[in-house]
């Protein structure tokens, strides 16, 4: 395997994932992109002997030592935090020690067997048992009753449609946004109102953070190593909102997706939300124009990898739209067809056009170099829900592109235990 040198830890992780931990890896200087191909030739010529040697030499065996299932950790606050830091368990913020008692209570609240396997978390492919997820939920500060929500979020993130392997290792600033829907959100006190993407609510903060800790501690998505994010995003600390269904006549998001009455979570592989400020419009046409104009962006993964974009309508924008008879479907259709939800390719570099034509030939092949192309493949590419408090703002959350939102029910029984 050839790896650019800064990607060596990821190359090792991928080899281990495939069961060939000892695979020969030859490194070349990073980066290989962003330059003319011929500029790489000297470096490639110099690397050939090492490639040949790697192909001809038996690789050294790699020995891994399994982690113990329990630890005797120091009880002092600062000493425990140092202990956790040494094991790379922390996101940088303080952690609650996942004591046997607290983890047992978290597992009991889920009503599931501690050893039940939820799935394998990439890129390590380590097993996320109910107990291991619960330990991370405890560390994130979740009270026991939040465990079923965390488990549902982990299950959703491990659905193959979500493409967690790519999301967790990419250079793109993406992380799972957890959206909590329905009765469970209200019962457990999630914030769906003012400052919904911000700080100040234990359930939102705890569930968002717990999922991140699962990705880091079980999946071994470690910043600068296997997590290759160029900048990352603040949502990598915690990124969790609840849907606000109190103020509109919209069908709840999860019910449109087959979710149950007890409530559900959706994970969406999103960037940071981008504001849609519209204080001036008094009708749906004005607001839709601003939404469409915010959607159109040359810098978005959604331009060339396509996929879904999430529109989080503020309640006041949603009220104007619903007053004029717009339901979710009509909003999707209106934004998809909107003349502002298109981008001009004029001035786009030849290198980018070549890339776009490879990744999305259905949009870019056979169109002139200065064509105007739609941002969305279909109305359904725009996911629409309502959240937030008073104010003339909505939010647009671009996605990684090669990912699909996944909705999983939260069982009614477990969360009350």
């Amino acid at each position: 395997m050839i790896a650019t040198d800064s990607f060596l830890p990821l190359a090792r992780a991928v080899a281990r994932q495939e069961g060939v931990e000892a695979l020969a890896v030859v490194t070349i200087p990073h980066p290989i992109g962003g330059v003319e191909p011929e500029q790489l030739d000297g470096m490639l010529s110099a690397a050939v002997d090492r490639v040949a040697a790697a192909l001809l030499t038996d690789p050294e065996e790699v020995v891994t030592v399994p982690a113990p299932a329990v630890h005797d950790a120091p009880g002092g606050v600062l000493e425990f935090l140092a202990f956790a830091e040494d094991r790379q368990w922390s996101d940088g913020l303080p952690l609650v020690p996942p004591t046997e008692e607290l983890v047992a209570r978290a597992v009991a609240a889920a009503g599931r067997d501690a050893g039940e396997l939820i799935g394998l978390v990439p890129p390590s492919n380590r097993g996320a048992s109910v107990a291991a997820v619960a330990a991370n939920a405890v560390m994130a500060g979740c009270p026991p009753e939040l465990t079923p929500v965390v488990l549902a979020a982990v299950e959703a993130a491990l659905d193959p449609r979500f493409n967690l392997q790519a999301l967790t290792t990419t250079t793109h600033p993406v992380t799972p946004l957890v959206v909590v829907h329905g009765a469970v959100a209200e019962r457990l006190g999630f914030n769906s109102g003012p400052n919904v993407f911000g700080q100040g609510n234990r359930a939102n903060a705890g569930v968002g953070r717990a999922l991140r800790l699962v990705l880091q501690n079980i999946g071994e998505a470690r910043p600068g190593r296997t997590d290759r994010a160029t900048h990352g995003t603040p949502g990598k600390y915690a990124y969790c909102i609840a849907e606000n269904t109190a103020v509109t006549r919209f069908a709840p998001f999860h019910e449109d997706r087959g979710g149950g009455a007890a409530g559900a979570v959706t994970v969406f592989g999103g960037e940071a939300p981008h504001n849609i400020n519209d204080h001036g419009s008094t009708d749906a046409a004005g607001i839709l124009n601003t939404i469409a104009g915010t959607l159109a962006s040359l810098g978005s993964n959604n331009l060339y990898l396509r996929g879904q974009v999430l529109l989080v309508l503020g309640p006041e924008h949603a009220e104007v739209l619903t007053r004029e008879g717009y339901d979710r479907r009509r909003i999707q259709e209106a934004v998809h067809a909107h003349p502002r939800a298109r981008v001009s390719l004029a001035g786009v570099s030849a290198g980018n056009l070549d890339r776009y034509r490879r990744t999305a030939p259905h949009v870019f092949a056979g169109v002139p170099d200065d064509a105007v192309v739609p941002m969305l493949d279909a109305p359904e590419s725009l996911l629409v829900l309502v959240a937030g408090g008073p104010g003339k703002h909505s939010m647009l959350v671009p996605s990684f592109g090669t990912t699909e939102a996944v909705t999983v029910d939260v069982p009614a029984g477990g969360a009350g235990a």
Partner: protein
Amino acid sequence: MAVRIIDPSGSEPPTERRATAARPTSLAGARIAVLNNGKPNAEHVVGRLGAHLAERFDAQQPVAVEKPNSSRPFEAQVLDRFRNFDAAIVGVGD
């Protein structure tokens, strides 16, 4: 005072360890696949390395394949085509 805590890193991966193929003693005549992962210039990198192996070590001219979307794995049927090759060069990077 110590506290007994549950390790949060989950269980060992169930991946079956696979033995790597026996190394050839020489690359002369070797059939080499070069897999382009879809990243910019990846085609050039693996292609040039394969060509150099042919020129300097008498390997056969490399057989190339690409995946158009770097965010998805190679299709299984694509990889199946290379079961009978002596070596493959793949990449991770940017």
